[in-house]
């Protein structure tokens, strides 16, 4: 039983210059406990897909279930089962870490005592305990990201969606975040659905990669399978495979003179 399954999931935006098909029909299944890397060039439809799967944006076509709940008929069920960290994060800079975590618990319908306890648990788990009484504005990039993830884990979701979680982080914070994602899956069996532009990250972290381009899935497989198939060798870089898949490779070497 897949934890996420979509069939022909699509989203068209109406704009002044006519309809824009951001997502043109995504068929996808994700197994429980999988770490899925969702890749694609800018504008490929990654964030739109994520926003549909987290109920933020109603699809204009197709269907999907997340943790057994239908996206359209039971959005409340989907919301209880999944956590989402947007690219921008989502905390108020003027509020303390503790207050944000407790309010988040209350939004998930915990009682006040439960929410206070859960905030402390999360802070412990994500190494935020020392920071609980700081304002969110005073956190570093890596600390902010850990807080964003703590917020999304408040209700122990079965699926965690991360939209470009490590953009702008220093190498140390990125490595910490990778460890955290692996730990979530290993200790809690959480399914992690993440988008990224860092191919080393996708390679190191994902069990499986799905590449989208122009609103459609153009490749799907383990990192080594994609390298073998699209770049000719499992020792090739994921970068080469990615460029071959999305057809945005560097121009052939002999097409222009290097020097005149």
């Amino acid at each position, binding site marked *: 039983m897949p934890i996420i399954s979509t069939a022909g999931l699509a989203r068209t935006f109406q704009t002044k210059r006519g309809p824009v098909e951001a997502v043109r029909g995504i068929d996808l299944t994700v197994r429980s406990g999988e770490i899925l890397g969702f890749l694609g060039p800018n504008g490929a439809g990654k964030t739109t897909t994520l*926003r549909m799967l*987290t*109920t*933020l*944006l*109603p699809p204009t076509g197709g269907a999907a279930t997340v943790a057994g709940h239908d996206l359209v008929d039971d959005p*409340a069920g989907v*919301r*209880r089962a*999944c*956590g*989402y960290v*947007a*690219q*921008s*994060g*989502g*905390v*108020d*800079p*003027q*509020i303390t870490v503790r*207050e944000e975590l407790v*309010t*988040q618990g*209350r*939004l*998930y*319908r915990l009682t006040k005592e439960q929410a206070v306890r859960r905030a402390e648990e999360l802070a412990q788990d994500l190494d935020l305990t020392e920071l609980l009484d700081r304002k969110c504005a005073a956190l570093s990039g890596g600390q902010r990201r850990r807080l964003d993830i703590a*917020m999304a884990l408040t*209700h122990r979701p079965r699926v965690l969606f991360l939209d470009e979680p490590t953009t702008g982080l220093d190498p140390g914070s990125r490595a910490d975040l990778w460890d955290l994602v692996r730990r979530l899956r290993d200790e809690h069996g959480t399914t992690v659905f993440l988008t990224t532009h860092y191919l080393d990250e996708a390679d190191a972290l994902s069990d499986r990669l799905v590449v989208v381009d122009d609103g459609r899935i153009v490749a799907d497989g383990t990192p080594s399978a994609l390298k073998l198939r699209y770049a000719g060798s499992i020792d090739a870089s994921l970068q080469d495979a990615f460029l071959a898949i999305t057809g945005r490779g560097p121009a052939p070497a002999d097409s222009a003179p290097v020097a005149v």
Partner: protein
Amino acid sequence: MLLHDTALVFGRYARQTLRSRFAMLFGVLMPLLYLLFFGPLLTGLPLGSRGSSWQVLVPGLLLQLSLFGASFSGFMIILEKQSGVVERMRVTPVSRLALLLGRVLRDAAVFVFQAVLLVIAALFMGLRAPLAGILLGFVFVALLTVSLASLSYALAMKARSQHEFGPAVNALTMPSMLLSGLMLPMSLAPGWLDLLSRFVPFRYLVDAMRDAYVGLYTTSSMLYGVLAAVGLTTLAVTVGTRVFRTAGA
């Protein structure tokens, strides 16, 4: 659940307001300046009212406070959209309606509080009015705030940026203030202006409030004022609810 969630959202934004007490007092500044430097000009003028000029001016200033303040409530949500707070809350099971009502009720509390401060200042300037009328006036301030804040949040959810939102709101509030006779009663206006002002719902609120301030509670102005206030509130909350339920913003 709706009550629980509304109380929660109200609490979050009420604490935010309490953290910026200065901003809250700043909101009273403009009507207070009118009270101090414009009010005394009216004391000797024939305003066609049964009471003193203060009984004409203060209801207008209270509604002006709400008109200019509540219309810009949406600014906050634009900032929250940019920081991702709106979406972060919308992926939780929290009631969509509560996300609107909690904010709107906070605004109502803030503007009624500011209105109380302004009435106290007006009492020092020379306002004398029946207590029941003054209290009824606060109800009008609350209803107008709920209406305008709901519309403002709805517009802000749809607006792409504050650069789009600010000018749009300005373009609506300024003529509304002039055309509803908030500063001076429209009974002084020439026929065409009086007629035009009848298309602005705030006019009925201020006329009713001026009646309340001279102790007249059963006039036709009062009836129209109550109908306009309740109608506007119902319409605005309905619009706000629809936007908050569906917004992909």
